[in-house]
């Protein structure tokens, strides 16, 4: 059953003529233990969407169900309890500058009314989980961005939430730190069986840790599905844009004035397919000469994912045959010329 269920969610800011509709009817559901990504350009409404989940933002209409309970129907006290079952981390970390790392992690425990004598042990356990045991007494100003986000994660996990909401959690970090934070989130997610919602404007982040993804544009979900599917055959222009950005391939070759001598193909190889002698087969079975313009192997979470841009030289008829053969294998292929 879905742990988060969003139905017909709308949100406008302002009133009357000046009203700005940021969410225009969002429907989505996130399964228990799933890592769900929401990707979109800035202003697409992703942050507003995630903030509606723990009601930091009040939806204008529509419903958000957490474990089957409508978040809008909760009383103030019930809402506070519900929020404790959802940890949240932020782009700007939002730590208390007046408290040490340990003090920051203790905050949600105090708010939940945890017995004071039990707090120190729990705090050191959490700091150890995020690898910051030695920084317990440091103030946020003395920590690096990555360390601050680790404190943020420890704090978000303090009350054993079932859901972790990540609002552009790595957007303020450099690529290396981003990678280490994503590994940490992924690792903790597996260990604790968390449900994670990841908001990001970077497809790379989504690719790294998400199972499913929703692509947002102007307050609407324009494409949704498993990350592997969305990535290997993007349908909406916005999704294509994101994918192109990572693969930096395909039509660029034509745009940059490359004159193909045969059929220009972009082939996406997923999972086991990456290990097949693909180019060799084209030579052996069809007598064609593939010119490899670009080859790229990456991972979508744990699935290997390869992209090959080739100029297929040789007999035209054989080339058509080869393209059919590739399709029959179930491999995504796009003819670019």
């Amino acid at each position, binding site marked *: 059953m879905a742990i988060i269920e969003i139905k017909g969610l709308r949100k406008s800011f302002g009133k009357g003529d000046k009203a700005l509709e940021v969410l225009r009817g969002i429907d989505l559901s996130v399964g228990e233990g799933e890592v769900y990504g929401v990707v979109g350009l800035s202003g697409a409404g992703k942050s507003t969407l995630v903030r509606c989940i723990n009601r930091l933002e009040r939806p204008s209409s529509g419903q958000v169900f957490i474990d089957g309970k409508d978040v809008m129907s909760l009383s103030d006290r019930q809402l506070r309890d519900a929020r404790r079952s959802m940890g*949240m981390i932020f782009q700007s970390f939002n730590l208390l500058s007046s408290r040490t790392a340990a003090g920051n992690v203790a905050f949600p425990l105090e708010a939940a009314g945890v017995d004071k004598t039990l707090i120190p042990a729990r705090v050191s356990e959490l700091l150890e989980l995020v690898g910051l045991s030695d920084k317990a007494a440091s103030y946020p100003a003395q920590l690096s961005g990555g360390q601050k986000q680790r404190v943020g994660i420890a704090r978000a996990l303090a009350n054993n939430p079932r859901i972790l909401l990540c609002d552009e959690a790595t957007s303020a970090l450099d690529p290396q730190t981003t990678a280490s934070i994503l590994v940490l989130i992924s690792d903790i997610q597996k260990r604790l069986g968390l449900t994670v919602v990841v908001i990001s404007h970077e497809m790379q982040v989504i690719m790294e840790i998400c199972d499913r993804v929703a692509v947002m544009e102007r307050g609407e979900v324009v494409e949704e599905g498993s990350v592997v599917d969305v990535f290997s055959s993007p349908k909406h222009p916005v999704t294509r844009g994101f994918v192109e950005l990572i693969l930096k391939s395909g039509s660029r070759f034509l745009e940059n004035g490359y004159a193909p001598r045969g059929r220009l193909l972009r082939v996406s190889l997923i999972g086991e397919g990456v290990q097949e002698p693909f180019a060799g087969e084209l030579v052996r079975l069809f007598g064609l000469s593939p010119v490899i313009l670009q080859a790229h192997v990456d991972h979508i979470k744990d699935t290997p994912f390869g992209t090959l841009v080739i100029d297929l030289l040789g007999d035209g008829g054989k080339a058509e045959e080869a393209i059919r053969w590739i399709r029959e294998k179930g491999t995504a292929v796009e003819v670019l010329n």
Partner: protein
Amino acid sequence: MLLTAQQILMLKKASLETFYMVSVTTALTVLAGVPLGVLLVVMRPGHILENSWAYRVVGLVVNATRSVPFPIFIVFVIPLTRFLVGTSIGSTAVIVPLTLAALVLMARLTETCLLEIPHGVIEAAQSMGASSWRIITRVMLPEALPGLFMAVTIAVITLISYSAMAGMVGGGGLGDLAIRYGYHRYQTDIMWATVILLVVVVQLVQLFGDALVRKFTRR
């Protein structure tokens, strides 16, 4: 230009009066002004205890109080002073207008400090299920502490200056001494002594305030 024994005695008495007025007023100002400043923040649209109607009323009252020049204000609140203290003259009576004037200043200064806290920090506390009371006492006030010390320093110095007008209603104090003896009786030495004393006191208050600010700044 040495002071006579009698003049020194007068200075001592006036200093004590100033100290009495300023210290009691400061305590009352902090006790009432900080909560009022908190209200001016949390009742704002989009804040944790949003209440635009009450916010406007409180803002209006604060602004109205701040617009009346202090000497006029002393006279204006005489009925209230009589009601609270039983008399409208003397050091204790002056505490009423002093407190009212300083507390609205303190409220605005507190408001400014609290607005400096990034809103995300407050939202993070909300996302952790903290109540509004906890957000005010464990997030907003501790985060704004250095700024609040600065605000109290400004309020105390303003109070020292305002207390010079206490003489209008027989409140005494250093300012009163300077006007009555230094100005009306042409005793320039008394004038100099009070001015030097006030400069030194204000300087010390500022130094002490700055030290507190430094001690609690974690940024």
